[in-house]
Each structure stands twice: as C-alpha cells, then as structure tokens.
C-alpha cells in the first residue's frame, strides 16, 4: 500500500515534465504534421477545410512539383551548392581548428579572434558588400559565388565547434605520432580527423541543415530561375495575387526530406560530438 502511494507520488511529481514534453511536441510537431497533410491535398481542398485529413490522397502532387514546377532544378542546385559548400567548409574549418587548437604561433589569438568574429556579424550587414564583391568578380548570379559566400559565412561556427573538440584531444597523441615519424599534415589527417569525427559530423549536419534552408544570400545573389535553390523555388508558388498553398506545402515536404535523412544518419554522431568530454 505504502509502495503504491510512493509510486503514485513519484508519477505525480513527473506530471509537469510530461505535460511540458507533450506541449512541446504539439507546438513543434503540430505544424509539421499540418504541412504534411496539406502537401497531400489540393489548394481548393485546403481553403475549404484547412485542418482536414487528405481524402483522397494526392500523391501525384509530388510528381507535379518535381516535373512541372522546376523543382528538380531547384533541388539539384541546392544539392550542388550545399554539398560543395559543406565539404569545403568542413575541410578548411577543420584544418584551421586543428592549427588553432594545436600550435602556438605568433598571432594565434588574433587569427582566432578574426575567424570567430564572423559569429557575431549579422548576414544583413554583409549582404551589400558581398553583392558588390561578387559582381566585381563576375560571380554574381552563379552557384560558385553562392558556394564561396556560404563557405565564408560558415567557417566561424565550424571552427568554433571543432576547435573546442580538437583542443581536448590529448597532446600526447600528437607527440607520439611525431615520434613515430608522421608529418604535421599526416597527424592532422590520421589522428585529428578520425578522433574528431563526432565533432566533424556535428558541423556537417548543422551546416547542411542551415545552408539547405538558407534564403537571404540566395535571394539576393541569384536571379536566374534556372539557378535558384529550393528555398527560392518554394517562393515560385507564391505571388502578389495568388498563393498555391497546396503546392507550397508539397514543395516544403520535398525540401525537408534531405534534412530528415541527414539527421537520421548523423543525429547520434552529432549528439556524441556535442556532449563529448575528454577523448581518452
């Protein structure tokens, strides 16, 4: 009897937490589910009953978005820009983080300050200057230009995350590799990179998610429809006089798919990277 009462009291104490989790799930998952249902309904059906369940289910909307609405072009543009930018930012960022974490050199602090100051600069502040620079370099309205901008603006966060992790790798590992005859680059490649993999996965995932959804730079620096990325493509369905809510929802579901896949693959490594303590 006493045990049952204790059990009941323990459950009661957990009630606020459970309520919070339920509320949080509804607030964050609800809109997602709503958009998911809308992606399978036509705009007319949605206007008639915004919260209705898909009946009939319009799977053909995904094919239409992909083929008739230029979505495949936007998707591949996004994929190209994001994959190349994430690859470059990971390689450059990890090298910079390795150097800052591992070597004492004159100007070390200044270089760190310079790189990490990128964290506090709002993108709106950079946009005009970037526009002019890309124009001067004939990179305006090109995917290459956008890749360079993405790499430059995401180096700071990448270095910030990786340097913190790399600095925790014991110096003895590097000394041991040096005594074994490995060069500085080999040590980076064979010791830092594999041991730092959880942190690298973290930055890859975060950068991918952020860049995949990036809108501001893309909308300013790309004008050709054939060069637009997915977030701009979704705009295609919204105009000043019409709004195809159903197709916007379908476009959003297509856009979010790679994010879900990336997260499914790397979430464990990402959590490990974010919570990892000393590497022992």
């Amino acid at each position: 009897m006493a045990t049952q009462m204790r059990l009941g009291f323990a459950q009661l104490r957990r009630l606020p937490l459970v309520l919070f989790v339920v509320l949080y799930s509804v607030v964050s998952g609800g809109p997602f589910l709503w958009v998911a249902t809308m992606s399978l309904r036509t705009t007319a059906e949605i206007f008639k009953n915004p919260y209705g369940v898909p009946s009939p289910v319009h799977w053909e909307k995904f094919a239409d978005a992909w083929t008739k609405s230029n979505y495949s072009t936007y998707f591949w543009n996004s994929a190209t820009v994001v994959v190349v930018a994430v690859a470059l930012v990971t390689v450059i960022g990890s090298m910079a983080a390795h150097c800052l974490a591992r070597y004492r050199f004159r100007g070390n602090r200044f270089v760190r300050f310079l790189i990490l100051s990128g964290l506090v600069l709002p993108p709106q502040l950079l946009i005009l200057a970037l526009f002019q620079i890309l124009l001067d370099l004939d990179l305006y309205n090109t995917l290459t230009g956008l890749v360079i901008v993405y790499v430059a603006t995401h180096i700071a966060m990448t270095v910030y995350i990786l340097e913190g992790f790399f600095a925790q790798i014991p110096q003895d590992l590097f000394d041991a590799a040096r005594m074994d005859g490995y060069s500085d680059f080999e040590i980076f490649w064979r010791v830092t990179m594999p041991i730092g993999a959880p942190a690298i996965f973290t930055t890859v995932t975060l950068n991918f998610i952020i860049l995949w959804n990036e809108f501001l730079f893309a909308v300013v620096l790309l004008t050709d429809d054939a060069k637009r990325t997915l977030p701009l493509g979704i705009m295609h369905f919204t105009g000043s006089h019409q709004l195809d809510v159903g197709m916007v929802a379908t476009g959003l579901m297509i856009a979010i798919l790679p994010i879900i896949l990336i997260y499914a693959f790397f979430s464990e490594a990402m959590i490990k990277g974010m919570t990892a303590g000393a590497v022992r």
Partner: protein
Amino acid sequence: MAVITVDKLCKRYESMTAPAVKDVDFIVADREFMVLLGPSGCGKSTVLRMIAGLEPITSGTVSIDGRVVNQVPAKARDIAMVFQSYALYPHMTVFDNLAFGLRRRDVGRTEIDRRVHAAAVKLGLAELLKRKPHALSGGQRQRVALGRAIVRDPKVFLFDEPLSNLDAALRVTTRNELIKQQHEIGTTSIYVTHDQVEAMTMGDRICIMNQGEVVQIGRPLEVYRNPTDTFVARFLGNPPMNLLKGRLDAKDGVAVAHFAGSVIVLPKRAASSLVRYVGRDVIIGIRPEDLYETAPPGGPVPIARSPARVVAVEPLGAETLLVVALDVSSDELIARIGRDTALRNGDRFDIAIDTTAIHLFDPATTKAIV
C-alpha cells in the same frame, strides 16, 4: 647500443622568469636504466621531452652516441617514448596502434606482422589485437603503450610516468613486468617519475631533480643512504627523514653532536670534515627506521635515548608509525617500529636513536656534512 649525454641543458619559457630546466648534466650508459625523480614541476618531464625532440632546447646539448641531436627532429632520433596517458589512438585497434610507427617507416607488411605478433606474445596481448583501446583495462593499455615502443626496436626508450594512471595493485605488477622487459631487451632507458618507490626499485641509477636542477645522481641505495642535501633526505624515504636542530662540539678530541637532550659521539671517519663545524649549529637527520622503541636487537649499536611522548600511532599492518614529541624540544619525530608495539597516544617512553645512522647537514646551505 646507445649512450645519452646531456650537457648543460637549459630550458627557458617566455612566460616564466626562472628557467624550467637549468644546467642539467648527466650521462646514461649503454643499456642503463636511469630514473629522473623529483616533485611535480621540477623539470624532469621537460628534460625527457628535450631528449625526445618534442621540446626545443634553449641551451646545452643532448647527444646520442656522441652525436649532438639538438637539431635532429624527433622522428629521426630513433627514440621511442611511453607516455603517461599511454597515447593510444582510440580509433585504431591494438594491432594498428602497435603497427602505426612501423608503417611510417616503410617496414614491409610481413615484417610488421611478425614484429607486432612477437611483441603481443611477449606482453600477453595476443588475444587483444583486434580490440580498441576503450575495451582494454588500464594495465592492458599500458602494455600496448609499451608494445608500441618495443616493436620499433629503437636505440632509446623514454618513459614519462607510465604507471601513474594505474591503481596501486596494478602498479606493482606492471612495475615488475616493466623491469623484466627492460632487462630482457636491454635498451638504454630514461624513466621519469615522482614516485620514489618506482625510482628505488627500477633504476640502475637515479637522478634527483628539484626546481629545474639536478640535485644528486647515484645508485638508489647510495642516494638513500648518503643524501647530498636536506631536500634529497626528505624526498627519498617514506616517511621522510626527521630533521632536527643540533649543535656540533668536540670532546676529548672526538666530534660530538648535542641534540634532543643527548650527546652523541659521531663516527671517527667523519671527524676530520667536522672540524670546521665545531661550535656551530647543524641539522641532524634521522631516518624513521633508525629510531627504536627499545634497543635494536642483535649486536651492540651505539644508542642515544631521549624521553618522548607519543602523539599519534599509525598501525600499517606490517609495521607501525609513531609520531613522538621529544620532551626537551618542540620537535616531532616519526619512528617506524614493529607492528606489535603496545604504545598508545599519550604514552611516555625513552625513544632509542641509532647514532651510527644519523646524518648531518649545514643549516646555511642545507648540504650534507661528510
């Protein structure tokens, strides 16, 4: 075959006013096991890292077989090092950890296989080759670290406190294992530790360092028996040597020491060097094992007695440590006596001192008076 000569070695860091290492000199003979012993921060690891080539040398030289290696990079010195943290690569298996250094040196795959397996068998790691470091116990990791040094078959082994991460029981067995391996392999070795038991049991010779300088070098028992100054006297030995104020005098042509209310006739061999201290204060050192509850058994040993009170009794099982306060002064002494003592806190007794075993130090320089 490798002789290591360290000559006037200095290390100065920009951020520090005093040098971290100052004029360190020693020679490690071929196949010798030299232990660098000292408290934390005394510079012993810095010396080791300068020998390894991991730390730039401010001044002085390190030579291996007569060749100065100051400008030779670490990888070209043919030295293997075992680190305090073992420095095992967490993403590699035991096999890959052992083979890592060999692969860089363009050793053939068959030869790598042979050497790794030979080292694994020697160190009892044969069953663990496919495991990763996180799946190994502390002792096993330590053996892998040792194996990684062995497979390279280097001229010199350097050990940087390799046992300090092990628990007490494992440290004893691993220590014995390491001694055995070093005797079998016979490679010239330098071993850094702050643990005097490791130093005493492992080293052919020990080099005691303090505040960046070498204080004394010698065979372990030699150093223990003849400490060159009060630092060595206190640092080597657990509990440390008791140091008391005393005074030297001459009586009937023989040197005598006054302390703890007693007059102790000093051994004749020391008389000539003591002349200049006659009439002056000295520091008198007595090891805890040279103090007795009653006269020591067997043989006539010159004994002085001093009334004392027991302040604390620490039974350790095999022996008992007594902290006693002398009646004639405020000095407290630690005595190591038999486990069967009946003495308790507050008891009074006449503590017996083996006068042949006392050490004398100059209070101004803290150097031994011999």
